[in-house]
């Protein structure tokens, strides 16, 4: 028989969203549409929305569940009159809502529904580790690696997972030794076209496709505008871009291999990725606009893509959930790792659903995975505890 759920025994899941990143708004959509709602509908948890405003202030209030609060712009007035939430580390995470009578809310699990800087790059994960509370999605180390394109490619290469050839350099290096850098590009024998990318940003902001060496300078300038590390990477020819959401700690469950449909442009930019998502007809709606689900590729290639994605997920040390972006050379039948998204927008619920996992199942499983990882970490901590000081 199923577990009887008694209200008072329900665990409290805090869904953290918003944040001080360029993807603040997308995080709101992810949190309210794809996390809060199904978590509540599961009836298994008390769900607490925790909103981080653009200025970094934290708010915890049930009113934050309403998307209208954000779409109508009422959020500013709300933040102005609502008391900010305080964090208390009390062998676990406690949120304090100050007021006439301060309300203390013990958080059992945190569900970060954040994208980009601070939320997805390991910063929040570090905070939650310090607080000693289980949280959904990749742990700190994997998040840090994932959000750095250079680091993740280096890790991937060390695990013998194929990824396009690249060089990287910092802004100061470029400023000081421009000529040397161009020579480095030459020496690396990168074939044009190449992509010039800022190392850290998640979406395709600041990425330029460069066809000939003359245009390299301008593209590097643009990338440097966004980040202090830039990579120049060989473009994959006969390209098919696919992406695979994967869930799990040790045992991995991949969703379907999805093929985002690019427009006439060579690749997606921020606009097509988020702003126009699903506004026009045709294709599947998702955080990425339109896509073929499952990808329209031969079965052998499809399986190879799944394999590469799983290997990449393991190599980077992802847990909970992540989405692996792959580049396929459809002529050479080769699959390359491109990058990894520790917190895919929308959780890629549309893909999971096609793979047979309903949104309610998805979020509850993610919470369970978070608790499982936490329990294992605690076991490790117990074995490591020493009584060093008492020896004296």
């Amino acid at each position, binding site marked *: 028989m*199923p577990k009887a759920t008694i209200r008072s025994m329900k665990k409290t899941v805090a869904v953290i969203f918003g944040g001080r990143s360029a993807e603040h708004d997308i995080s709101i959509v992810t949190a309210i549409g794809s996390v809060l709602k199904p978590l509540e*509908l599961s009836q298994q948890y008390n769900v607490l929305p925790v909103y981080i405003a653009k200025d970094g202030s934290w708010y915890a209030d049930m009113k934050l569940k309403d998307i209208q609060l954000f779409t109508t712009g009422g959020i500013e007035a709300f933040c102005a009159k609502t008391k900010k939430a305080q964090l208390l580390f009390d062998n676990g995470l406690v949120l304090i809502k100050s007021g006439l009578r301060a309300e203390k809310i013990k958080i059992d699990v945190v569900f970060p529904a954040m994208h980009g800087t601070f939320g997805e790059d390991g910063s929040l994960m570090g905070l939650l580790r310090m607080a000693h509370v289980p949280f959904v999605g990749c742990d700190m180390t994997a998040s840090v690696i994932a959000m750095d394109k250079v680091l993740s490619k280096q890790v991937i290469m060390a695990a013998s997972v194929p990824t396009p050839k690249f060089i990287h350099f910092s802004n100061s290096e470029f400023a000081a030794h421009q000529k040397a850098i161009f020579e480095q590009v030459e020496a690396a024998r990168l074939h044009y076209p190449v992509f010039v990318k800022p190392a850290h940003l998640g979406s395709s902001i600041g990425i330029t496709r460069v066809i000939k060496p003359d245009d390299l300078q301008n593209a590097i300038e643009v990338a440097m505008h966004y980040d202090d590390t830039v990579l120049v990477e060989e473009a994959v020819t006969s390209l098919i871009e696919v992406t695979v959401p994967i869930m799990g700690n040790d045992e991995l469950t991949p969703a379907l291999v999805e093929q985002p449909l690019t427009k006439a442009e060579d690749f997606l930019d921020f606009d097509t990725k988020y702003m126009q998502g699903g506004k026009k007809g045709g294709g599947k709606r998702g955080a990425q606009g339109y896509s073929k689900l499952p990808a329209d590729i031969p079965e052998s290639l499809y399986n190879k893509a799944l394999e590469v994605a799983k290997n990449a997920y393991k190599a980077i040390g992802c847990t909970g959930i992540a989405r692996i972006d792959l580049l396929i050379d459809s002529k050479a039948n080769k699959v390359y790792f491109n990058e990894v998204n520790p917190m895919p927008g929308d959780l890629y619920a549309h893909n*999971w*659903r096609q*793979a047979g996992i*309903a949104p309610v199942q998805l979020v509850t499983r993610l919470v369970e995975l978070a608790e499982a990882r936490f329990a294992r970490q605690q076991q490790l901590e117990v074995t490591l505890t020493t009584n060093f000081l008492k020896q004296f």
Partner: protein
Amino acid sequence: MIKYLTRYHPHYITALLYMLQASEYKPKDYSAWYLRTKDFSTVARRRSLVMTTKAKLLLILLWGLVLIQVMCFAIMLWIWFASDEVGWLIMAGIVTLVGPFVTAYVVLFPLWLGQIVIQRPKQRRLIAAAHQKLAAHKGLRIAVAGSFGKTTFKEVLATILSEGKMVAVTPGNMNTPIGISRFINTLTGKEEILLFELGESHVGDVKELCELVQPNMGIITGINEAHLITFKTIERTTSTIFELADFLPHGPVYKNAESELVRKRAHKNDRLLYSRRGVNGWAISDSTVSINGTHFTATKGQKIIWAESGLLGQHQIGPLVACIDIADTLGLSVSQIADGLKKTKPFEHRMQPRQLHGAWIIDDTYNGNKEGVKVGIDLLCRLEARRRIYVTPGLVGQGEKTQTIHTEIGKQLAAASIDVIVLMRNSVTAYIVEGLRQAGFQNELLLIDEPLQFYTNLEHFVAAGDVILLQNDWTDNYA
């Protein structure tokens, strides 16, 4: 105590209006619901109020009543202040105490008055006019009666007969003397076939309707415990529905052999007893059911019909073959009948499939009887699916048998090894769960506290490849 205080919350007024509307302004149902309700803040959880003119007028009246009470209260307090007689304070207290009840019941008065003065005479004139009009009409009259399945039967028959005849049919659930009279008054006189659905809730209802429509042919689609509260015993239900057969002692009356109560009452050798095996010489073979519909072959002598109906479920074969026989008797060709069958589609909220993100939702929320639950579970088992999900609040108005019926449903569900069972939590939930337990159900069970939330957010519960059957919608007045 806090629950009691909900009577003084502004929502109370809206709740009263909602209760009136949901009980179709029937004082008895309304009153029973009112007396049963303890917490008025939870009323109107399943559906919401529809603001009709009537509702608006009543809302004004309700608030008027509240206003009068508040004024009385204020005046009494004022007098008490002025005169210092404690009697006035007590009076004010009494007003406060009885106020909500007065409001709840006084609102019935104008409704009752409207009935007597305006509606009743108007209705009598309407029925008289219909009587006259029908007397001069040359069309063949077919009447459909039964506790369940009559609307579907009527619509299916109309669809098939329309392939060769001019057919007029009572729309929707218009099955009372008033509704049918309104329908008759819209006839042009050219119709060849008139199809009537006869409603029943009290003894004599079917007879009264038969006298109005004077049928030449009848169909009894099934009998069950529906309206048992008004009928008191199942025997009375049976004889009321069989008033149609009584009215046509010699005329053809088709009867559903798959309904036990109908079969018992009918003669064993009645050739017009229909079932999934056939009727009146028609034999059924090769039947299959998929999400796209029900297919079978019907044979009678030289006549062969390959039937492809959009209706879902083995249980549809009986009514379909009865329709085939009626159409055949009325002179339609085999190909006309086959064409008609192809046009039969599920009706709204009756075994109606629709896609949702790659999952199939079968909407059978208008079903309200245990026979329907049985065929529903049966259908769910037969369909290809990644997960089979069954959703129900249980059945309404089953009287004394509520417990046994729901325990039985639980057992059926367990036996069918449905993957996920979703129950809207209410008074019968425990019985279904008990049935599940007895039959050793091991799969997932979900108890839902907020049905409206669940139904409107169905998309969050489904994934591609799931088949979800939704049965038996409840209104609040049964909560």
